[in-house]
């Protein structure tokens, strides 16, 4: 009995030290809360959308659908955080730029026509190039001019939405082509939302890249100690810029999904404050915001937890005025719990319990 008990607490101690612990606990708690309060939260049903396709619908599907953009951004943000010891706060503005550029390419400057002037894939690839250039711009400021990432990206944060509006002469292009709406909605015949597929594709790609290249090793090395990384033959500047460029690629993907959801754009509010949620996702994933080692999977989990929380708050009809406050309370709890000092305290506590048990 004694043995079993100490084995259990040792297991608990180990569990608490795991990076998966915090996001998993948050997920389980949220799920349990919803399950007890209203099991219908998890109901998934098949409905027919207005295009006549059978699609899945229900809160879990909604979470996977709308959390996908954040999950994609969390991938890029994790790399930037790890390599540059800071965060990119221009993500929302960059999404506006990428989305606006893609729309500009698609409608060819004629905002009211609604017909496509080039294949969607071409417009998307050009959007990728633009977003990666802006990413590189941030990266150069951070890597060569040694500006703090948050300050460097403040430039684009301020100017980005105006640049986005300028691409389209401040008009609101509307794409009437049905195929364009598949990206942010459903592809006929597939009942699962497309954004989730795109997010999964991004996750698979980044997993393969991290497994089969040295990206993880190099990024973490630069994040942990830039000088020793340089002494070992790495080029810290290049690695940092690379991380910003990869984030730029993520931004372009998100931009495409966002403008596809409503087949239009509103420069001043599209992806508003998404950078804060992306940073939060990285933090919720138990990653240190001061760089170094990172865990991609927990960041992605963090993103879906944020969406889970949002959807829960909507579900229980939290008043508009109080919505940010509720979110803040949960976020404070999660972030404090995932702080290394708190985790250490808990694992020390576990050790003490173990010692007592042994005595």
């Amino acid at each position, binding site marked *: 009995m004694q043995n079993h008990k100490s084995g259990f607490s040792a297991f608990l101690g180990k569990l608490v030290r795991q990076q998966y612990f915090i996001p998993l606990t948050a997920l389980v708690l949220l799920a349990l809360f919803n399950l007890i309060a209203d099991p*219908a939260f998890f*109901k998934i049903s098949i*409905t*027919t*959308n*207005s*295009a006549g396709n059978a*699609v899945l*619908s*229900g*809160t879990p599907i*909604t979470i996977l659908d*709308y959390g996908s953009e954040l999950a994609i951004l969390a991938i890029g943000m994790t790399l930037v955080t790890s390599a540059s010891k800071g965060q990119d706060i221009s993500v929302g503005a960059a999404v506006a730029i990428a989305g606006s550029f893609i729309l500009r390419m698609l409608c060819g400057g004629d905002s*009211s026509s609604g017909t496509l002037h080039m294949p969607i894939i071409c417009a998307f690839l050009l959007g990728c190039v633009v977003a990666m*250039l*802006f990413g*590189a*711009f941030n*990266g*150069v400021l951070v890597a*060569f001019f040694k500006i703090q990432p948050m300050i460097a990206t403040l430039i684009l944060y301020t*100017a980005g*939405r*105006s*640049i986005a*509006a*300028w691409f389209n002469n*401040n008009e*609101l292009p*509307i794409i009437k082509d049905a195929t364009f709406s598949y990206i942010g*909605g*459903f592809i006929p015949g597939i009942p699962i939302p497309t954004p989730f597929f795109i997010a999964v594709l991004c996750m698979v790609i980044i997993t393969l890249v991290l497994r089969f290249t040295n990206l993880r090793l190099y990024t973490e090395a630069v994040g942990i100690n830039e000088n020793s990384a340089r002494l070992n033959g790495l*080029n810290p500047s*290049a690695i940092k*810029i690379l991380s910003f460029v990869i984030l730029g690629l993520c931004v372009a993907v998100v931009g495409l999904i*966002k403008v596809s*959801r*409503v087949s*239009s754009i*509103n*420069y*001043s*509010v*599209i*992806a*508003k404050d998404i950078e804060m949620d992306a940073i939060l996702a990285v933090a919720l994933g138990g990653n240190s915001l001061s760089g170094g080692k990172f865990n991609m999977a927990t960041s992605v989990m963090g993103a879906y937890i944020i969406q889970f929380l*949002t*959807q829960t708050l*909507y*579900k229980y*009809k939290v*008043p*508009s*005025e109080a*919505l940010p406050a509720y979110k803040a309370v949960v976020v404070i709890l999660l972030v404090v719990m995932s702080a290394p000092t708190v985790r250490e305290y808990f694992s020390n506590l576990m050790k003490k319990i173990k010692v007592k048990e042994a005595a």
Partner: protein
Amino acid sequence: MKKKLALLLVAGMTMASVIGCGGNSAETTAPAADTTTDEAEAPAADTAADTADTADTADAATDEAEAPAASGELIKVGIINNDPNESSYRTANDADLKATFCEENGYDASFAYSLKNEEQINAAQQFIQDGVDYLLLSAADTSGWDSVLQDAQANGVRVILFDRTIDADPSLYEASIVSDMRAEGDKAVEWMKSQNLDEYNIIHIQGVMGSAAQIGRSDALTETAAAEGWNIVMEQTANWNAEEAQQIVQSVIDSGESFNVIYAENDNMAQGAVAALDSAGITHGVDGDVKIIGFDTNKFALEELLAGNWNYDGQCNPFQSSYINDIIKTLESGGTISEKTIIMDEKGFDAETITQEDVDTYGI
């Protein structure tokens, strides 16, 4: 490798800076154009005067000279507005002002844009120093304007507020031309009442909490709903954002609650709400199950009305310039303004009665 990378980055940066500059130059073209025409005007007027002096025999020459000579009496106006990129309302508002306050109408207008109060105040001081006759102001913030408006008064600059009011003594400005957001909301709610639905189950999507448009439009619905016993299924802010509105409506659909009216406080949010309905196969509009109400008469929204996909759209009139023009003409001819606060006419469009002409005239 390193060199190549550096080259690539330099290319990227120059590209980015070109884009940045491009943005700036696009913004500055308007004022630049103004100054060039100003400069061009003066010599033109001079030469015209010369020709009038030397060759007073030719009638045609004097006729020609009349127009430039009148330019000496242009009314100088300084217009301080919010950034035209802010919203399509602001874009339409700015275009309308530019169209009215032009030389053909006897104005010499300069424009200054900012979303920040301090920058607007600086611009106002600059305009006062430049000796404008009228200062037209859409203030970013309601407070902080007293001293600069007193300066204006001391220098004989007359101030007209448009679109937004400020917390200053009414004696400091001539008139204030504003939209009544509450009236816009009341009009929409009145329309809802006139539909005589069997029951009202409403999703209420709010704008940014605390903004004038949100307060006016929300109060109208909340009060009537309480009085009429309408059921508000969901009341939530989507911060003027289409995607957030989409998520909110999606969450109601997921919960299985029934609803038959969506009251969105702007067109973008109505658009997001409709996207959620479409993916769930819920019909909407004139022949549909759910009535869609939006605000701001964006062109795309009026087109949706015309197509019968939405039901009602309330106007938030951005065309203040004709009102301002009237006031200036009255003041110039020595008249007085009877009412300080002028509330603009605002329409509400019903999908059943809207015409293509309405879309072209009122769409912004």
